[in-house]
């Protein structure tokens, strides 16, 4: 069986749908700002996923529209959202205790770079004139049971964002367990980087793009892979 599951690279929405499908029923999930937010569009009622927002809520619903908009009910991206039945509110220390105490099953984050050992760089370009801002990224990266990254595999200049060692300032060390990109899904574990599926390229073509050794994912060895 080929691990190429699509003849073309995946678009952002298709990738969000794939991530959504991979989230186990009943999970508690935090979706980062930007591309990860799209995942919420594809979660089904049957999955019974509870969304956390670090500014103090579990059971966050979709973005608020029109008369639903309430300045006291926003998400971590400061976008007005809604409340689902069974929601709860708590203060910031209690909210981050949920994240830092390892209670979230999954967080989905964007990234500048991910290393072969799961280091994450997603908060700072390192440019000397940049104003640094970290928010809750380090807490999510370090605290969630599984950290899924969503990103394009290549920069605009064609460089791989999956790297041997991150050149950007780190957000967390050895924290990423899966990387969802337009060209492939990578599983990061103690024995290296495995490729679960490729989109619009073969495994061999993928390896030419990525400067870290890749191994096709062997389902029989799944027990050894973190995050499955």
């Amino acid at each position, binding site marked *: 069986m080929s691990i190429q599951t699509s003849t073309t690279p995946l678009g952002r929405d298709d990738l969000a749908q794939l991530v959504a499908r991979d989230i186990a029923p009943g999970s508690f999930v935090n979706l980062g700002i930007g591309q990860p937010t799209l995942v919420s569009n594809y979660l089904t009622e049957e999955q019974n996923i*509870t969304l956390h927002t670090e500014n103090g809520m*579990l059971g966050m619903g979709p973005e608020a529209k029109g008369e639903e908009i309430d300045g006291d009910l926003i998400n971590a991206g400061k976008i007005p959202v809604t409340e689902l*039945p*069974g929601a*709860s509110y708590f203060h910031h220390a209690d909210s981050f*205790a*949920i994240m*830092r105490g390892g209670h979230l099953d999954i967080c989905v984050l964007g990234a500048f770079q991910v290393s072969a050992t799961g280091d994450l760089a997603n908060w700072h370009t390192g440019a000397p004139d940049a104003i640094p801002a970290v928010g809750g990224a380090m807490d999510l990266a370090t605290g969630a049971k599984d950290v899924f990254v969503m990103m394009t595999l290549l920069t605009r200049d064609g460089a791989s964002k999956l790297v041997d060692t991150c050149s950007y300032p780190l957000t967390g060390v050895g924290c990423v367990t899966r990387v969802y990109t337009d060209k492939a899904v990578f599983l990061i574990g103690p024995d290296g980087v495995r490729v679960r599926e490729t989109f619009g390229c073969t495994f061999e073509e993928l390896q030419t793009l990525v400067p870290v050794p890749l191994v096709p994912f062997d389902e029989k060895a799944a027990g050894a892979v973190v995050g499955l």
Partner: protein
Amino acid sequence: MLKFIDTVGEAVAGIKDGSTVMIGGFGNAGQPFELIDALLDSGATDLTVVNNNAGQGDQGLALLIKEGRVRKMICSFPRQSDSWHFDAKYKAGEIELELVPQGNLAERIRAAGAGIGGFFTPTGYGTMLAEGKHARFLDGKWQVFETPIHADVALIKALKADGKGNLVYRKTARNFGPIMAAAAKHTIVQVSEIVPTGALDPENVVTPGIYVNSIVKVA
């Protein structure tokens, strides 16, 4: 994954010998008697139990101790007028005691749930309960290094749960419930009432369902 379970027996069935079990309650308030009785019936033994006390009278935790199921107690106040089962085991050298100031007990449990690897507190500095512990001078006073208390299982009692596992408590029976729910790998809750999801005001939820694994209604 949250489960609603029919009987206390099924709820505690997975608790293994050698487990660390947190048990909610301060005195009798908030003590999950039915879950403790089920744990006794389950035969689980060699337990480390975390509770503020070490059992009262001839019920609940006191019976678990009497029957020799508890290898070690972590608590702040074992000695009471009716703690005869603990007293006997302790004097016979048949139970280990880790005595922890009550605030350190609460904060160490809270730390486990919040992912804190250790903290400094002035409580206990200069006393025999801090002997051998690392101390630092911080914020103008000597403080003692304390570590989190994790547990395999928490048995707690709440007033109501909704379909998402959100909990509310009643008066001072709240006590250790919320922090133990967060500190244990698997939290089992006995409640007086299960209400439909949406029936609890989100502003008033005390323990969010993310901390709850099993719920059993007790009449």
